[in-house]
């Protein structure tokens, strides 16, 4: 409780290792479920909006202004201010949980849409034209080109957009506690109000751990869903039989060097 940061760090450790703080409505497990619930719900909604939209814009080359203009403008919206604005409107319009949960999820969706949208668009727009032409030449229809060639090739960028969105959403879901919702933000907000700085630090630590762990899990998922042909892993696995040209490619250098 003293002014020294050291005391709060050890206090946070004491707080985290007390089993009483892990059970019940205000316990870590319940707050984890709430925090993940808000984050994943927002991410799912953002995916449903941004993935098809980004894919269509990238595939057709139309409405590209939507990505550079609208999506980037959304990034500039301050989440806390927007949440309070929407919550005041929500309280005026609805009763009960939806009055606050709706605004909180909306704010997180707005945060998650731009990275997913712009990465999906960029990934698809930057697919090698030769690959696209080859697919057409093989007789694929527009949607087949999108689903079988463009999306798989764009997947590394899409996954990185998703990871970026996940990090921002998990970190920002903390502010749901400002409007009386749950999640790890409760520890930060309540800790401040009750001058229980150990709990506050513990809450911030939990958010950080959740963000990093989630990011690693998404990285592992990406490892398996992204085509080996794009990452160079296939080449490395074939190493014994590799030609010199293959090894050069695997090192990430261009094969057509003199």
């Amino acid at each position, binding site marked *: 409780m003293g002014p020294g940061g050291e005391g709060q760090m050890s206090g946070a450790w004491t707080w985290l290792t007390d089993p009483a703080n892990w059970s019940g409505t205000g316990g870590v497990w319940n707050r984890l479920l709430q925090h993940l619930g808000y984050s994943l719900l927002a991410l799912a909604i953002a995916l449903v909006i941004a993935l098809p939209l980004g894919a269509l814009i990238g595939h057709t080359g139309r409405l590209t202004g939507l990505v550079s203009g609208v999506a980037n403008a959304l990034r500039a919206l301050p989440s806390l201010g927007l949440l309070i604005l929407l919550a005041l409107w929500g309280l005026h319009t609805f009763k*009960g949980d939806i009055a606050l949960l709706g605004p909180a999820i909306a704010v997180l969706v707005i945060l998650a849409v731009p990275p997913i949208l712009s990465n999906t668009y960029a990934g698809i727009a930057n697919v090698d034209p030769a690959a696209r032409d080859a697919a057409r030449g093989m007789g694929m229809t527009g949607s087949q080109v999108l689903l079988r060639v463009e999306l798989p090739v764009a997947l590394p960028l899409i996954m990185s*957009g998703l990871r970026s969105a996940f990090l921002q959403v998990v970190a920002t879901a*903390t502010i749901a*506690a400002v409007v009386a919702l749950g999640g790890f*933000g409760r520890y930060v907000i309540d800790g401040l*109000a009750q001058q229980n700085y150990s709990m506050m630090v513990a809450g*911030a630590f939990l958010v950080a751990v959740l963000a990093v762990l989630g990011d690693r899990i998404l990285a592992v998922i990406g490892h398996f869903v992204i085509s080996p042909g794009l990452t160079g892993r296939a080449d490395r696995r074939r190493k014994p039989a590799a030609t010199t040209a293959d090894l050069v490619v695997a090192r990430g250098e261009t094969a057509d060097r003199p």
Partner: protein
Amino acid sequence: MTMRTGRRRGLFRTAGLLAAGLAAALTISACGGGSSNPLDTSTSAAASGPASGSAAAGGGKIVVGSANFPESALLANIYAAALTKAGLDASTNLNIGSREVYIKAIQDGSIDLVPEYSGVLLQYFDPTATAVSADDVYAALVKAAPQGLVVLEKSAAEDKDAVVVTKATAEANNLTSIADLAPVASTFILGGPSEWETRPTGVPGLKEKYGLTFKEFKALDAGGPLTLNALLSDQVQAGNLFTTDPAIPANDLVVLEDPKNLFAAQNVLPLIRSDANNAQVTEALNAVSAKLDTATLTELLTKVAVDKQDSAQVAQEWVAQNLS
């Protein structure tokens, strides 16, 4: 690479959130009846320096100051209107700031009179004070007031923390006082600001003085829209609002009585410089206090805060109708 910048952004955001949370909490602690905010640096009165026109006993101009929230400004307008009606020369200097600022202003003579709340003012003058009932607090406050300042008669109007339930909840469970919650507390969720969970005048006090253990405590806000929403939508069955909140009559809420004085008395009363006070001033202000009760103050505050009427106008109308 995207991953690395993404993570850094996440960390920055967490740090930013801490700062934002801090700012939000400070704002929250700054409003609500009679709370003081030591970080409030608005010094409009202090900056104006010692006033040249400090009222001399028996007739100079009386400057009525107020704290920086609507209820205090309204009360200052009422005092000014009452003094004017009594034929005295009164003016106002409103929304000065927190208690730390306007008490300095009244001590240096920048203002002569300010509306106050007995409990918090006593705590300000004497942090060790333990009185809780209206009469005890007032008696202690009269003694604790520093040289040169006096408090006049207290009114029945109080702006303080209260445990509030909906009319339906009150009728279904026969509730008129906090003590009546005893048989139902274990099934009720209590809502209030985060600090209520640990503050002596919150969850611990309710347990100690009334033996109440609620099913759960839900952190909301300090008597604001979150608490109101939670009460009206039955997310909490009992909540913390302030007694003069216009939302209480507007939503037919029931303020539970506090027979054991968990919440110290906060009667509205005038704090005045001794050298600005005289029999005529005392008589005019005591007449206000005699007429003012919590329901009246709530009604007048509703006109200002909800109907957006002019505070000075509301004050003048009330004074014209109620003071002879």
